[in-house]
């Protein structure tokens, strides 16, 4: 049994934007019956060039259906240029995360979007563009595609690559070549990892506060925002960070859990092992209304 978030379940049971569009501006189709999942994505633009209508049809497991539904919700209202920047990680984050072995479902969403945009730009001439050389013949994954998931998600092992784009999951014959790509991209991946994990050995007070603020902005806030919540840093006293939850998080029953398992864990990871967090109860926003799901 997979451990899916409530949001994955919600988008699986009540998928948004299911169906087809008559005379769409762009159509993208990826996957196949043999692969076990497939997604057909269509969109129509309004006069301002925004994605006014987006529809999908998906064959696949619960997380494939939920990822497709999430994708349509994310890109609705975006311009082509904005939509083009959406990564598989954003799809997974929107759903509150996906099991590692199901990450390929979010990648399928991003691929379908790319295919649809390509289809739009070539006025329907290009139905599916294959970039690079097919490396994994079992699932038809190209080297370009593998490079893309490695860089987008900072992957460092063949197993991770298989989880994200299936490559190497069939006969396993291409595992050596995947290993080589990982080796080649290692400098870039570790650079972007370093950007995320900046943990100097000794921090001045100002550095510490800045780093806490940065970690909250980059690492913590985005995941809270997917649940309609937010967080604010109130003060830093020694190694104690005093924070306040905002929005949905403020009265959430699991706030205490989030405080320990998300906020404190991230600060320990990215700032210092000795950091603890405390909630500032005095500053709860008074206008907050609790929403029940």
């Amino acid at each position, binding site marked *: 049994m*997979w451990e899916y978030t409530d949001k994955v379940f919600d988008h*699986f*049971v009540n*998928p948004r934007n*299911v169906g087809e569009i008559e005379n769409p501006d762009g159509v993208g*189709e990826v996957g196949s*019956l*043999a692969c*076990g*999942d*497939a*997604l*057909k994505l269509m969109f129509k633009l309004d006069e301002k060039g925004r994605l006014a209508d987006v529809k999908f*049809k*998906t*064959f*696949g*497991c*619960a*997380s*494939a*259906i939920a990822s497709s539904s999430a994708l349509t919700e994310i890109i609705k209202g975006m311009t082509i240029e904005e939509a083009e920047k959406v990564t598989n990680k954003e799809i997974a984050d929107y759903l509150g995360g996906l099991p590692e*072995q*199901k*990450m*390929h479902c979010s990648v399928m969403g991003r691929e379908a979007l790319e295919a649809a945009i390509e289809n739009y730009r070539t006025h329907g001439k290009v139905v599916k563009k294959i970039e690079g050389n097919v490396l994994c013949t*079992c*699932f038809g994954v190209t080297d370009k595609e593998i490079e893309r998931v490695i860089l987008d998600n900072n992957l460092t092992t063949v197993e991770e690559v*298989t*989880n*994200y*784009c*299936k490559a190497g*999951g*069939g*006969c396993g014959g291409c595992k050596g070549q995947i290993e080589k790509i990982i080796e080649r991209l290692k400098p870039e991946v570790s650079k972007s990892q370093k950007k995320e994990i900046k943990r100097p050995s000794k921090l001045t007070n100002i550095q510490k506060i800045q780093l806490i603020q940065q970690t909250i902005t980059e690492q913590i806030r985005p995941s809270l925002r997917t649940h309609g919540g937010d967080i604010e840093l109130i003060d830093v006293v020694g190694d104690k960070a005093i924070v306040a939850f905002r929005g949905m998080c403020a009265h959430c029953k699991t706030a205490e859990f989030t405080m320990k398992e998300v906020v404190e864990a991230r600060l320990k990871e990215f700032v210092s092992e000795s950091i603890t967090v405390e909630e500032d109860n005095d500053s709860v926003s008074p206008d907050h209304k609790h929403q029940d799901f």
Partner: protein
Amino acid sequence: MNTVYMDNNATTKTDPQVREEMLPYFCDLYGNPSSMHSFGGQVGQKINQARESVTNLLKCKSSEIIFTSGGTESDNAAIMGTLSSYPQRRKIITSRVEHPAVLTTCKELENRGYTIAEIPVDRDGRFDMDIFAHELDDNTAIVSIMWANNETGVIFPVEQIAKMCKQKNVPFHTDAVQAVGKIPVNLEKNNIDMLSISGHKFHGPKGIGVLYVRKGTRLSPFILGGHQEHGRRAGTENTASIVGLGKACELAEKYMHEENTRVKAMRDRLEKGILKSCPDCMVNGCTDSRLPNTTNISFEYIEGEAILLMMDRFKICASSGSACTSGSLEPSHVLRAMGIPFTAAHGSIRFSLSRYNTEEEVDFIIDKMPPIIKRLRELSPFIKV
């Protein structure tokens, strides 16, 4: 409606009578069966009784029963333990649709230099006797073929296979984990040398099984230590579970008729009901030689895990050969070996019933399946709605 459990090929409910039988062996009768005192000795007697119950069900001798931790251990021990009897023979014959307990063991032996012949099955999941007869030769160290397939329920002609092995003087093992307790097994009347069974597949406890080894079959000890299980499988007996397994065997004999009449009738009604109410679905596996409790149905153009999760919302438990993980190319090695097309193989659902199921539950599933299938097909890009 409470949980509707139709996943009995995965595991079964422990019969309350089995549990009652087991309970004293935790806190009251906790003695070691090997002890000299009567406090332990009485437990030894109870184990002997349990062994008798197993022999009554299988029609064999008590000295031929080795208690193990379950089907997987029995399969491993049978295959690994026979090879040293014929060190010059370098071939192992099995089928393409075996349980991983057998297939993975064979894969490992392939790494050690053995040749593995995997006998194919036809579109209906039937064992190919011609190819088997062709493969069986003097170089064969062991043949391991399952009695009944866990995914489709298709029954293999193991008694005939055993006879052919006997003629060639090749040891024959069968994984009978799905067969025992569902169909009659009579080891007096066939040439099967070794047979694996698992307690939890027929309302016994988990973590206990049996390897039957016919007298005269050369099998090396597989767990070394004390004298237990004739020195072949050392270690203090799992007393409570052995007692529970004994009771489960007793009950299996008692309910064998019901399994092949009432349970079978429910299975048939469920199968017909679904086929009638859901378009584009089909039964996998030949229906004339099949376990009485199993049906495997493919729903075309949709994916198994999604179907299961939709069923889960109604607390209906079944299983799917399809596991949508990045690491598996084939939806189910059994269905693919049968040549079931991808359109159908990804959307296969196995219902496996037991004596605890009711007619109301069958009605409930027949009622709930069509909207689930319709809903997922509306989402599928391969169907024009």
